[in-house]
């Protein structure tokens, strides 16, 4: 296998050099464009040769993503990106594998592969484009659509509570969960870098705007006026502060989180929780994923990031170990082992 370090220098690419020759076909204004930029930037900054990357997607608007990258890419079938990617990573562990999936693709038809890929901790990055709608099929509700939402398939409002991708991921034993908004390229790149560097399945939920079928669904969080109050951008080791003046913070009271203002009612920064993404105890991470505006800011950035063995590494270790310890050294040994008999 090619040694990445030696080739890295000679193939350092600019973000736009990661593009393929295909025209990007998303609607003007679609949030997917931002993710495309962020991914190209991330690869460039991490200096990963484009032939060492594979983008594996399902079906949906977002799943067209691989066509727009000049890397290896596979636009598979609806919901199965994680399944295909698992095979890719096991077969070819040197590849940087990126799973591209929508909220329908990953959480409706692909829900089973989503939870199992997380549980197994396959070393890949899963980008979950959450626009809370089925875009490609023109606007039906998805498993993340808010209760009561009116869509083409719910003209009288939906009647089901949505999944919270973060809660579901953590309930599936996730080791890395992050959340970003499509309007904040800087945070997105920072998060994607951590995701790529994390060993194991990194799930990144992207709050993505669909201008056509679900416009402004995230606008309370992403809107210019409201975002400061509604975004809590977590950084490992830093206090959980937010707000236009960065003077609001989160405090733990028993098993409830609470918004406090530093400087009011005797609150000091010491009362504010400090983010520890690396805490193996998932409880606080679980609580953070649940925060909803307007009562709370929405937690963004890397919420959970802990070390654990990966499935693919364990698989290759086991192969190596078996090889080292085997009484067989060739298939011929196997074929000739045990009860054989000669006919003359």
């Amino acid at each position, binding site marked *: *296998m*090619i040694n990445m370090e030696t080739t890295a220098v000679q*193939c350092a690419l600019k973000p736009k050099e990661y593009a*393929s020759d*295909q025209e990007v076909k998303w609607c003007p204004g679609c949030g997917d464009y931002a993710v495309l930029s962020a991914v190209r930037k991330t690869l460039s900054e991490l200096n990963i040769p*484009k*032939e*060492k990357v*594979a*983008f*594996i997607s399902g*079906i949906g608007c977002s799943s067209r993503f*691989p*066509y727009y*990258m*000049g*890397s*290896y*890419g*596979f*636009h*598979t*079938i609806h919901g*199965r990106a994680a*399944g*295909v*990617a*698992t*095979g*890719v*990573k*096991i*077969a*070819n562990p*040197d*590849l940087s594998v990126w799973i591209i999936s929508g909220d329908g693709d990953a959480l409706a038809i692909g829900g*089973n*592969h989503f939870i*199992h890929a997380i549980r197994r901790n396959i070393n890949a990055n899963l980008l979950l484009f959450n626009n809370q709608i089925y875009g490609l099929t023109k606007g039906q509700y998805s498993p993340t659509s808010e209760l009561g939402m009116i869509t083409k398939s719910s003209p009288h409002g939906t009647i089901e509570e949505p999944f919270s991708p973060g809660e579901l991921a953590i309930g599936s034993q996730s080791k890395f969960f992050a959340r970003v908004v499509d309007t904040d390229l800087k945070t997105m790149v920072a998060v994607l870098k951590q995701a790529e560097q994390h060993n194991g399945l990194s799930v990144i939920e992207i709050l993505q705007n669909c201008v056509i079928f679900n416009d402004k669904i995230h606008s309370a969080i992403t809107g210019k006026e409201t975002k400061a109050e509604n975004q809590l951008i977590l950084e490992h080791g830093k206090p959980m502060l937010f707000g236009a003046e960065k003077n609001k913070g989160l405090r733990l009271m028993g098993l409830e989180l609470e918004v406090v203002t530093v400087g009011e009612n005797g609150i000091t920064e010491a009362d504010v929780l400090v983010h520890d993404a690396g805490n193996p105890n998932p409880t606080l991470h679980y609580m953070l994923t649940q925060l909803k505006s307007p009562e709370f800011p929405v937690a963004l950035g890397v919420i959970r990031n802990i070390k654990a063995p990966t499935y693919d590494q364990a*698989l290759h270790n*086991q*192969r190596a170990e*078996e*090889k080292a*310890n*085997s009484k*067989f050294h*060739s*298939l*011929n040994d*196997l*074929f*000739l082992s*045990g*009860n*054989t*008999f*000669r*006919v*003359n």
Partner: protein
Amino acid sequence: MIKTELKSAVIKFAGDSGDGMQLAGMLFTDTTANKGNEIATFPDFPSEIRAPQGTVAGVSGFQIHFGESGVYSPGDAPDVLIAMNPAALKANLSNLKPACTIIIDSDNFTERAIGKAGFSRNPLENGILSDYQIIEAPITSLTKSSIADLGLDNKSVVRCKNMFALGMVFWLFNESLDQTINFFKQKFAKKPALVKANIKVLQTGFHFAETVEAFTSSFFVPSAKKVAGIYRNLTGNQATAWGLLAAAKKANRDLFLGTYPITPATDILHELTKHKWAGVKIFQAEDEIAGVCSAIGASFAGDLAVTTTSGPGMALKTEAIGLAIMTELPLVIVNVQRGGPSTGLPTKTEQSDLSQALYGRNGDSPAVVISASTPATCFDWAFEACRIAVEHMTPVILLTESYIANGTEPWKIKLLDELAEIHPNTAESHEDWQPYKRDKKTLARKWVVPGTTGFEHRIGGLEKEDITGNVSYMPLNHEKMVHLRAEKVAMVTNDIPLQKVKGRNANQLLVIGWGGQFGILFGAVSKLQIEGKNIAFTHFNYIHPLPRNTKKIFEGFERIVVCELNNGQFANYLQAQFPEYRFERFNKMQGLPFTVKELKGKFNELLNDD
């Protein structure tokens, strides 16, 4: 004491699920195979893990046919039946040869057990067995007393009684105990009491048979005149697994298996997962869809990728197989068929997934379909499936069936040097390379290993533009691609051997078979040919595409009959392609293989029917 020489014999061990009949049968098989006999076996057990004790539903059987020649199937009916309890007797009563020998554990013929088996009166007393040679032996009690002194618990003691029966059978056939004794020495190396017990009981059974003189004669089956070489026994599933291992080696690719357990295919997983030392990558997925999808991913990433399943699992994989067809990736799909439809008869045999293999996908989506004939040749067909997949860049569906997957046959060991090389259609030069550019001879596109510079490309399930592989919605391109995909598969016919016929000079009746019913069909036709009947036989392993001389073979026969374990699926397939001929049907849908007897009956009927 007479010692009769037999060309071949059929023995059936039958008892409760817990009575160890499968082990007894396998040990007998090993001994006789080792001696150089031809063998064919048929294990048959209930689908419940532990079916209710003492009932007919709970009977577990193992039939073995062994001999010097003519062993094409496990045999229709046993020459010797071992019935460990009344239920085992009951289950087999309707299928016995006249005057055959029945060994009975008389200890178990209590009133209660007789009732539970569904007999209204004691069959040993009411005369219904008067046509048979009945050997009553107090197997359970003699087992107990023979090892009373070894200090084993009662459960372990009773478990040995299968060895008593086996000992008797060994005596009856003048076979040696050595191999079985060795087996126990190895198996229980760390539990010497168990070694002692099993050997003791085995010998006691052997001596009992000799001393009681209950048998009026014993038998002797001479060794087969096989091709010289080293042999071993394999089940079909084991042979399939080994064939896959060998193919990966000869193709110089890692083997990847993505699968989900399902009866009767799971043993392929069980076997392959033992051989991580050989570099196999095993992924036990969360379901069949993830199983096939992971294999498609592995294939995209450069491994020789396989998925294994049975009918209901196959149904779940069809969407993804369509993706492999569109992306023209090599993929081997093994379907070990069981009885259908739906969950159907999970532990019984059938050939009813053929239509599904041929047509069970949306759109026009051609794939190569091949099938295996016998347990040991599963090795060759698995190997061939891999070869076609990577040389022709196409999914290949390999159909085997419960009957051969669980059955055993001696395999003439093929060492790696004896196997042909496999040449994956790998992209080597950048010059002129394009994702969907094709080899002229095979129409296969090139296989690229991601990670290599200069071959970066994107594929997917949307229609591809010819040559570039870009997404294309253009009308004429689609039509072209539909044709190209079909032709690529059709052209595999140029790369497979011609179809053979047994009985070149016949012109009255042509018997057609496919898949795992080979042995029985071959046997039945052979017998009729020896009787001088005007009958020929051709057996298909390549189903789609068919060998290039297929049509020629049908020419000149008065009648053609297709024999299969389903409601006429292969016959339909042939009829659609060869309207010039009339394909009659002989179908069996009982979850059981054909018997030579019913085949001979049918063929004679067709031969006399003019």
